[in-house]
């Protein structure tokens, strides 16, 4: 007995459900486009959202690594320039000692040279006590104050810690943030003096005391100086290679950051081209169903029966 196989309310119900569904889909695509992000809440894509969280965690860690690497780099450059100055001082003392070793020198002249060496030694002590960017001792390891103390007689004692400590550069990589005074001022075993500063004090004192021992002291001093010079240049090489290591990790970090950024876009970003295409498709279907709904809804027997 049914003329059309469905009831009026069923027709309207179905049409409104279909059109509402299409509208919701179009709005979802539109909001994806306007935010540029595919994931508004974690539940949109739990795996993707978790990956994004991990990437953002790695990103924020990496930014701190950048700051740490810059700090390490600055400290190492400070160390490098201080070591350069040490080398210059040693060269100057070598010149003076070579003069003092000359047999034609008088005691007074040697005493003058000894005094100058003493002054240069004081400069070297000052340099050894210089500070890093954080205000700590540059050559004092992890101690807060000076690396060396000087007693009334002019003898120096190292008061810093044994190692300089490591700074993390990310991904489990570390760099030693500097070198300690004993690392480059200690003379090799078997030398007459334990370290360069003591050797210079012995030299300076002997030259100022004069006498026959002075010339011999100058000769001994030359040997100690060349050993000291070797230690300083070795230390410079170490510092240089650490700087290169920091640069290498920085480059690696930059690459990783780029990779993370591209992965973040892949995981969480909206694919503009495909989203626009899908939006267009949805809009076409929506318009078509709206048009066909209007046509069907205007079909009524009442308007035809008179």
């Amino acid at each position, binding site marked *: *007995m*049914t*003329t*059309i*196989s*469905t*009831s*009026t*309310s*069923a027709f*309207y*119900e*179905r049409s409104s*459900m279909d059109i509402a569904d299409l509208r919701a889909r179009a709005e979802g695509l539109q909001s994806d486009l306007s935010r540029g992000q595919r994931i508004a*809440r*974690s*539940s*949109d*894509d*739990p*795996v993707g*959202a*978790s990956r994004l*969280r*991990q990437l*953002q*965690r790695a990103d*924020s*860690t990496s*930014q*701190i*690594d950048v*700051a*740490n690497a810059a*700090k390490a780099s600055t400290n190492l450059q400070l160390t490098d320039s201080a070591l350069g100055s040490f080398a210059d001082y040693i060269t100057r003392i070598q010149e003076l000692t070579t003069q003092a070793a000359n047999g034609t020198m008088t005691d007074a002249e040697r005493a003058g040279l000894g005094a100058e060496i003493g002054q240069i030694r004081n400069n070297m002590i000052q340099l050894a006590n210089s500070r890093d960017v*954080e205000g*700590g001792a540059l050559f004092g390891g*992890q*101690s*807060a*104050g000076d690396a060396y103390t000087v007693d009334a007689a002019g003898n120096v004692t190292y008061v810093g*810690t044994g190692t300089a*400590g490591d*700074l*993390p550069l990310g991904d489990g990589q570390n760099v030693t943030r500097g070198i300690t005074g004993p690392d480059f001022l200690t003379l090799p075993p078997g030398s007459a003096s334990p370290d360069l500063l003591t050797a210079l004090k012995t030299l300076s004192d002997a030259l100022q005391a004069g006498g026959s021992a002075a010339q011999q002291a100058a000769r001994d001093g030359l040997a100690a100086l060349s050993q000291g010079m070797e230690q300083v240049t070795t230390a410079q090489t170490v510092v240089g290679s650490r700087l290169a290591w920091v640069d290498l990790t920085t480059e690696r970090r930059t690459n990783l950051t780029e990779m993370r950024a591209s992965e973040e876009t892949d995981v969480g970003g909206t694919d503009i081209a495909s989203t626009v295409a899908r939006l267009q498709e949805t809009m076409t279907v929506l318009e078509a169903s709206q048009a066909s709904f209007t046509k069907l809804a205007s079909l*009524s*027997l*009442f308007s035809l*029966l008179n």
Partner: protein
Amino acid sequence: MASDLLSIGRSGAQAARIALDVTAQNIANASTDGYVRRSAKLAEVSSSGGIGTIGDVSLSGVRLDSVVRNADLFRQAEVRRTGADAARADAEVAGLENVQAAVEQSNVYSSMVGFEGSLQQLVGDPTSSSLRANVIESARTMVGTFNIASSALDAVGTGLRFEATDAITQVNTLSGELARVNLRLARAADASSDQTALLDQRDSLLQQLSAFTDISTTINSDSTVELRIGGASGPLMVQGGSAGTLGMTTAGDGTITFTVSGMAAGPVAASLTGGSLAGKAQALTKLAAVHAQLDTLAQSMADTVNAAQAAGITPANASGQPLFGGGPPMTAANMTLALTDGAGIATAPAGAGANSRDASNLNALRTALSSADPVGGMDALLFDISGTVQGRTVTRDALRTIANGAKVSLQAQAGVDLDQEAVNLVRFQQAFQASGKVMQTAKDIFDTLLAIR
């Protein structure tokens, strides 16, 4: 001859009038919710001949047999069943989405990453007072977000329980109404238009009830309904003119259970598997689990940091004091920041001396944190919630489609088709006119007889 042409015509006209009334009623209620299309069922009135009058023609016209309600019991039951499932999934997803928002939007995760980062930054210069202050402030933010997440979860739980209480009130009201409809149905005459309206009301009440809880119905021969909730073996809720009372019990962790009282001696536990009440109960169970996990993470974070603090010394060469306080037992809600001065952070190992830049203890703390990994735990918790929400959303969408399909299918069968009603209007109008013509003919015949002279 027992037939009467005029009264046959009159009965035909009357039947056509009734059919037109039914059609008009259908058109008027074309978009009424819960209205089931009626149709007039007509029956011939005639009698066979009696003794001595065999062969007599005895026609007496037509009468209204009954007003038929075109309801399909199976489709109605399907609408209730699928509707209850969809309502359960809807309520559960809505609750879980709120749980997700509470944890995610409190930014616990990013503040935990921030705290971790501030510790990493402190390694670069362990004695710097500004970096130490940064650690304290990051810790303060983290404690704050833990507190916020906890109170947001509590608020979600309170909201869910409030809605459940309201739903229970509605279920009780609807059940009481259903019991009254049962009483009136038992008294109403069969096939009267009064009964069809009551049946509409009965079905509409059942459908409304099915949005709150899964129901199992038995329709008796007198059209009254016997209602059980929580499945076919669940407790009896409505029987004849008496209705039970649904009650809710809240456990200590905020989860809810239901009982029916009034129908049997003492309350009977009801395990609901459908309807919004079941959905809310499920969401509350998940919420309790998430809350417990959040508390565990807060405790793990605090214990790890406090243990490392106790092992080291501050720049003032004092042993480290706990950074976080609260409890016991410590929860995300009562977690506090116990240390407010950056100078109290124990970065150096015991014995390193005052103002030491030795960061061994800080590194030990970071190692302990990365092995206990509360940040990873928080990520896993967020993943757990969002994965659950996503899975349930898929289920909900499927159940919704099924429920919509059942609804449309019921409406297609029981709803009013205006085109068909238009045809009926024309048909019954013609029938009315034809019956009028019959009466006209009867009059003409009578006139013809009178005209005989």
